[in-house]
């Protein structure tokens, strides 16, 4: 316990000291968080009417980001599996970062869900015991369980490793490897459960399709590791933490495979929707071509698909992939592409056309975007802190001083 308190104290000291660029970065994130808080206060004051959502499109940017980030959280930890199964030591460097990323992504998920609530003050109604928890009937309760469980696992494992390292000891693999294994399976479950959240709605044919879960996984495996590559690149540049080229190459391979599977599934979906279009293909029509002259999402989805395709093609060629500058560009493209495709491009068309064929378009408003930016900044802020502490401990910069 004393160790933990010391660890927190030391890391706070360490976190408040750093290079100028670090301070500027954190100040910038704080500013964005303040913007988010202001926007959220507007929303609290006036209700969700400050967002672009309506009775017809009742989920928007928040839930889109939530969905996407669940994938990031899941994928970040999935990197652990190859590290142990392939007995590939290099991966372990990525694992710590990955788990930190997962924690940040999960906290962002929860923040997005809370931001989307009409009555955040009444969230205690969910707590088993004093509230009513509609388990197992509601997929949302499953999601709450798996997300919070996952958050718990991903906080406790790195914490255990870091505390041991902090004390200068070697973490006992018999303790943390089972935890790591659990978290790997848990990662699949958080993503599948989130997919089931949508997949289980017979009211929304766009989501009610068996491919949704697998596609969630594939796209998450592309976007998550892509983000990790970018993060590792930044860490490599700004810290002393050694990350082998080999590690990044291995992760790039994961990204490549996942991006290809994702594209195959996309083609399969498009084939089904457009070769033999039924009444239920209208949402896809709306998304890709627009319906009755309403086409707000069309430029977005084509941008996303172009980005996906370009990135996948780049990744396919070893030569291009091994050039890190090009790899980073591909990762950025892939990340943004999947963010659009699996956020906006998935959630909004589910509501369009509405149950009675009506097309009410949705576009986020300024406060909504403000809150979203704020939450992303919060995620980056948390991750920066976690990663910096973690790296410092790994490098032995922060150490437990007895007495």
């Amino acid at each position, binding site marked *: 316990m004393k160790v933990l308190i010391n660890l927190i104290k030391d890391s706070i000291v360490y976190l408040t000291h750093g290079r100028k660029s670090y301070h500027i970065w954190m100040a910038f994130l704080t500013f964005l968080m303040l913007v988010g808080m202001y926007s959220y206060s507007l929303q609290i004051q006036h209700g969700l009417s400050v967002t672009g959502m309506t009775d017809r499109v009742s989920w928007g940017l928040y839930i889109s980001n939530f969905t996407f980030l669940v994938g990031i959280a899941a994928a970040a930890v999935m990197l652990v599996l190859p590290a142990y199964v392939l007995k590939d030591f290099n991966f372990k460097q990525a694992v710590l970062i990955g788990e930190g990323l997962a924690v940040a992504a999960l906290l962002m998920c929860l923040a997005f869900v809370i931001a989307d609530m009409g009555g955040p003050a*009444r969230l205690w109604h969910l707590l088993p015991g004093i509230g009513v928890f509609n388990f197992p009937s509601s997929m949302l309760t499953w999601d709450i369980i798996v997300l*919070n469980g996952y958050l718990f696992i991903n906080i406790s494992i790195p914490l255990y490793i870091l505390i041991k390292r902090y004390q200068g000891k070697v973490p006992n693999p018999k303790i943390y490897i089972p935890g790591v294994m659990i978290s790997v399976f848990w990662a699949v479950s958080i993503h599948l459960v989130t997919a089931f959240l949508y997949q289980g709605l017979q009211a929304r044919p766009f989501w009610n399709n068996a491919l949704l879960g697998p596609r969630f996984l594939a796209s998450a495996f592309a976007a998550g590791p892509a983000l990790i590559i970018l993060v590792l690149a930044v860490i490599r540049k700004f810290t002393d933490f050694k990350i082998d080229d080999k590690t990044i190459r291995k992760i790039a391979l994961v990204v490549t495979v996942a991006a290809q599977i994702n594209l195959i599934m996309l083609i399969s979906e498009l084939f089904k929707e457009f070769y033999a279009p039924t009444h239920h293909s209208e949402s896809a029509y709306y998304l890709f071509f627009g319906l009755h002259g309403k086409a707000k999402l069309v430029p977005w989805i084509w941008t996303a698909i172009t980005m996906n395709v370009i990135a996948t093609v780049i990744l396919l060629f070893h030569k291009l992939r091994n050039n890190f500058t090009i790899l980073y560009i591909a990762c950025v493209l892939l990340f943004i592409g999947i963010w659009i495709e699996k956020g906006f491009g998935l959630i909004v068309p589910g509501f369009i056309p509405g*149950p009675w064929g009506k097309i009410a378009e949705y576009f986020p408003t300024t406060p909504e975007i403000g809150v979203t930016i704020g939450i992303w900044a919060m995620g980056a802020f948390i991750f920066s802190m976690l990663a910096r502490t973690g790296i410092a401990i790994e490098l032995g910069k922060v150490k437990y001083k007895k007495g």
Partner: protein
Amino acid sequence: MSKEIKKWFSLNLGNKKQCACNDTKSNTTEDGFSQVFDISMNRRQAFKKITAGLLVGAGAVSTSCSVVSSGERKEKSQIEWEEYFKGNYKLMTDEEKQQTVDRLVRSYELRTGKKINISTKGAEKDVLFGYAFNISKCQGYMDCVNACVKENNQDRASEMQYIRIHEMNDGKGLNFGEADDTFYHEVPAAGHFYMGTQCFHCDNPPCIEVCPVQATWKEKDGIVVIDYDWCIGCRYCMAACPYDGRRFNWSTPQIPEQEVNKEQHYLGNRLRKKGVMEKCTFCVQRSREGKNPACVEACPTGSRIFGNLLDPTSEIRWVLANKKVFRLKEDLGTEPKFWYFMD
């Protein structure tokens, strides 16, 4: 404060300045409470809630210590406090139901000086409500919608309506995509027929399955209801409803005091707050008293038929037995208790 009382229902969009002493009912207050309970809290939220908590704390102190503060005000915050921590209506004992009703009635009286009547009447034995709609008779007059809005205290500002009347084109079948549900011209228009939709009170409702807190459920008499005070506003039920039957309060509902229907039911037309779901309840405050829902009563064409499905002599049973009835999206397995038929 008196200005507050009068305007409790208004949106106040222009008024950005929130007085810090004005603790009793702003939303920040509620946020403050929740910090005690909210387990999955992150930094940003926590910060916000601590701030809000401080506001509440300061407010509470000033309320309790202030010599000026009247007994009424204290009572009001007492009511709000108890209301905040009350449980799910479905699980309440009769006594608890009575207590919350008393609080709600008293709270309304404190705010407006008017009395309301909130019923907690439960489902009757051997009753299952059903509804039939004659699409060859409906003329699109919209009297039902008017009556519904008035009866059920729906938000006037956003023009919330439970019923949608679709103007369909003759010769195109039930083509909702090409139907117009925003028409405003003389009706019935040539070459069109009209079809009303609302909550169908499915026997196998997808909306109640998905609710994470069981704030919505099916009563014994088949009415799908919502506990407005238990709803957390996640809108999952809205996404799950294939019939566009549910509505959300995107902002605080506004109803001029003199237009408020004061004969209310806890699960029916009592006043809602911002950020909760609501929907048609077959006018539970009327139907449980033996009356027809407001839409049935208001319809000048007799297109709407309401009754007890378990009563073999009821009109609705006659319709089911003798007319060619159909329901919408039957393939989804939701089993709506809302049938359509033609002459």
